[in-house]
């Protein structure tokens, strides 16, 4: 069954719902001897868009990892005010054209405060990607565990877990996330956001994994392991888990853009990370009121967010085609 199973209500961002493809082991329709890596290389050669998006993804990840050094390189810390870069007589508009882009401030400055946009965007990448990756990790771990347990043990375990999945999916997730984040105060916002976003995403993964596990658990090699006296734990980790990993990896990559968008949407609504910590969504929210007087301030974080989501989506599409042939390559 196909469902939108992104972490958030769809208004928050693009779909993160690759087709659930329960049947078949990964890459079964390909010539024998092609490892996933070979397939991935072939796919990269075939589609230049995938090469570009892989490049963009790597660039963003590097940027997030190296954020403190990058802002040191730019010469400004993300929270440093620069009164010399703004015009106090013009409502704090950045001096110079294009939002104050200059050799001093590579992407210009914020109006009013004069904080360096390059430093903030880079720092924002760190916050946005950290939350997105961590939430995805929670979703994938919880979803895989629940899905394998439901599919393998069946019976009551399956009934309980499946009801729980249905229930979670019936929650108006964006509304709920906003409400939970606004009720909870005075804690680490990044940890809080990660767990709240993660809370609603796991059923999508669980359903994919459950379907895949159901089709794997009566294969001969699993029966053989069972007859040989292997424990359930051993069968689950050694025989089932590798079989479900292909679709899970593809699904995971397509979850990430949804998570990035969700984080941005929540921060945009003002219930995400708290200032002065920047995240892309929050920077966009702050810049909306300046979109006419200082368009670059609005456009720069938007472009970064757009590129990140786009690149992860394209990469996820390609990975799905490679690892999960039924879901793609049409």
């Amino acid at each position: 069954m196909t469902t939108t199973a992104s972490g958030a209500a769809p208004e928050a961002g693009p779909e993160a719902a690759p087709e659930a493809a329960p049947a078949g082991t990964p890459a079964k329709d390909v010539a024998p001897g092609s490892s996933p890596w070979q397939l991935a290389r072939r796919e990269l050669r075939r589609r230049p868009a995938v090469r570009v998006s892989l490049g963009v993804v790597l660039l963003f990840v590097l940027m997030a990892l190296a954020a403190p050094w990058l802002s040191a390189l730019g010469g400004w810390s993300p929270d440093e005010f620069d009164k010399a870069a703004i015009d106090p007589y013009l409502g704090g508009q950045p001096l110079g054209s294009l939002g104050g882009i200059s050799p001093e401030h590579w992407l210009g400055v914020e109006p009013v405060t004069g904080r360096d946009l390059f430093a903030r965007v880079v720092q924002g990448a760190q916050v946005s990607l950290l939350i997105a990756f961590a939430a995805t990790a929670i979703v994938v771990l919880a979803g895989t565990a629940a899905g394998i347990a439901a599919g393998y043990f069946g019976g009551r375990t399956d009934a309980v877990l499946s009801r729980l999945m249905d229930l979670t999916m019936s929650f108006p997730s964006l509304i709920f996330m906003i409400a939970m984040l606004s009720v909870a105060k005075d804690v680490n916002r990044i940890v809080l956001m990660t767990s709240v976003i993660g809370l609603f995403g796991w059923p999508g993964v669980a359903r994919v994994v459950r379907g895949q596990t159901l089709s794997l658990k009566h294969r001969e090699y699993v029966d053989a392991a069972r007859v040989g006296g292997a424990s359930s734990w051993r069968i689950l980790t050694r025989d089932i888990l590798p079989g479900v990993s292909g679709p899970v990896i593809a699904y995971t990559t397509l979850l990430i853009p949804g998570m990035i968008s969700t984080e941005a949407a929540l921060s945009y609504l003002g219930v995400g990370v708290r200032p002065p910590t920047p995240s892309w969504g929050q920077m966009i929210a702050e810049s909306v009121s300046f979109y006419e007087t200082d368009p670059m301030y609005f456009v720069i974080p938007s472009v970064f967010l757009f590129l990140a989501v786009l690149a992860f989506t394209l990469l996820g599409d390609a990975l799905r085609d490679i690892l999960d042939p039924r879901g793609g390559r049409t």
Partner: protein
Amino acid sequence: MILYLVRRLLALAGVLLAIAAVTFLIFYVLPTDPAAAACGKTCSAERLADVRQYLGLDKPVWEQFADFLTGIFTGRTLGTGQFAVHCDFPCLGYSYENSLPVWNLLMDRLPVSASLAVGAAVLWLLLGLGAGVTAALRKDTATDKALMVGAVAAASLPVYFTSVMLIYGVIRVAGLLPYPSYQALTDDPLAWASNLLLPWTALALLYAAMYARQSRGSMIEAMAEPYIRTARAKGMPERTVVVKHGLRSGMTPILTIFGIDLGGLLAGAVITESIFGLPGIGRLFYGALVSSDQPVVLGVTLLAAFFIVVANLVVDLLYAVVDPRVRY
């Protein structure tokens, strides 16, 4: 079929009950004190105790929850003595902010949110399915590639960015439309549509992109089925083959996501309603959050959950209509 329906309705009630319980727990038991919020900033300890009693907050949680549930089904009386107020069925309590019944607040705003969601849905179905089916029928051509690149790009744009760009381009620069202010459909259908055109477009662009991707995939799959070959071999016109056989079975997965999306949007278009200043349920919710108006927050959450589960049920029932292979 009847048995199936009864079973589904029971499950639906169970899900709503569970969601109500979870929401209640989160918003009534956790950090913020509703009595303090209702009482206001200049509040003495004595007055606070009164308010707490008036709101029934001095009772144990499960009793509060039971009262709340009773209120939904039969209505209830809030407060005691001369201050007692009867809250009619279906009672979701009173807003702390303006002392109006939450149910009335929700119903006042529902037409706005419904107009936004349904209009956008029509637009995105037309755009998304049009693009998806076109791309599927012209698979691997330049048209297909251009449509799909456009779809991925549109899906990657956050709705608040598209909205602001639309407001800037269409309203500020071109001056083609007035700044949206909601007009009821029954008052003036033309003003209704022209005011909602931009919010519809902003939402539809995002969703259409997803539908284009999804419908392309399922359409290609459907067109590869043997019965399509049979239909062609019978000499059926290509148009009929595509519409009656391909589209019909290709629509089943689309129907699933459509139900979830529309159901979710009816009470969940928080961002779009805020940006365009539409007085819908999403904005009511956002305002209620800012002022810690918990009865309203709870009401919106429940209504939103209700729409989602009902939409899911309707979708499952529609399967049988769309896909003749499905029987209950």
